[in-house]
């Protein structure tokens, strides 16, 4: 049994400690918002927060997450109203949508650490997340928009 906190709830997971966090989340806990894209930390679709950092859950073993705080896209905000989620809808960012959970989780760390990011800051934060539909221009726009929303007091 591996104990950890997922989206502010205690979980005990009966799995091998060498199971990547991604598969524990998806196949055992049933949180399927975190996606499998490459399995080798290349694409970022599996990005979750481990103690606030945007780790790639496909290579982060359950053993590393033991006793730690994990937040997934499902737990990013109580009512899907994180400034990034609102901005993503406003700017019509998603296309196929498969990478967007990871994109948003990465962007959330950026906005927390740099509330007014420049385009360069956005490149420096987001280039680990691949979008095959090429929604990058809208992701960029939505991050700028979310920064405004956050400034206006929309953050929780």
């Amino acid at each position, binding site marked *: 049994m591996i104990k950890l906190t997922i989206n502010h709830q205690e979980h005990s997971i009966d799995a091998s400690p060498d199971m990547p966090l991604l598969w524990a989340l998806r196949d055992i806990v049933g949180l399927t918002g975190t996606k499998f894209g490459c399995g080798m*930390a290349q694409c970022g679709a599996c990005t979750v927060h481990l103690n606030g950092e945007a780790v790639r859950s496909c*290579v982060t073993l359950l053993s590393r997450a033991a006793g730690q705080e994990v937040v997934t896209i499902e737990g990013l905000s109580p009512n899907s109203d994180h400034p990034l989620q609102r901005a993503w809808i406003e700017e019509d960012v998603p296309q196929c949508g498969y990478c967007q959970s990871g994109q948003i*989780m990465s962007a959330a760390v950026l906005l927390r650490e740099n509330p007014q990011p420049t385009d360069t800051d956005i490149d420096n934060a987001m*280039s680990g997340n691949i979008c095959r539909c090429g929604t990058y221009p809208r992701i960029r726009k939505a991050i700028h928009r979310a920064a405004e929303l956050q400034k206006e007091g929309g953050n929780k």
Partner: protein
Amino acid sequence: MATTKQLIYSLLTVTAVSVMALSFNTARTTRHTDTDGTAKDSTGSKKAFLAAYSVLMHPRCMNCHPSGEAPLQGDDSHVHTMNVQRGHDGKGLYALKCSNCHQPKNTPGLHMPPGNPKWHLPPADMKMVFQGKSPRELAAQLLDPEQNGHKTKAQLIAHVTSDSLVLGGWNPGDGRTLPPLSHAEFARQFKMWIDKGAFLPDK
């Protein structure tokens, strides 16, 4: 300051030796015994550094000592494809911090992220660039306390001998090439370079 003095001393020695070489066309070696009892030997020191240099410039070492702000990857030392940046502490930025992908241990499999508990680049205030440096430039940089994080020679030796991230170069993960010398041999040559006077190579 001792290091600076040593540097000046060694430069003077090299000059003197050069003059001697011109005059007598003999081996360009200087030997004397320092106050600490270690035998100084410019040729042996430089030769040892050149051996260590072959390791320092190997992708396993150099990739995290880039000339730019982004780490390098692979045996061709290409810029990290994810646009990873050094950040002030050398641990990356925002969603692209080193440890977001690089685990405490190597992730098994070809092309998987190699791991180390303290995976990082040199910090922004002590970049310790290897890429593009000649042996002489790199040796000088390593010895310069302003550039080496105020490490004494003993600390430099300790760093290359036992730092876990340095050692990580010899446990690079599946499919990656190893530096040209064993770690023990590298550490020995590095120590020898310093012990024999920490002479700067000619070029």
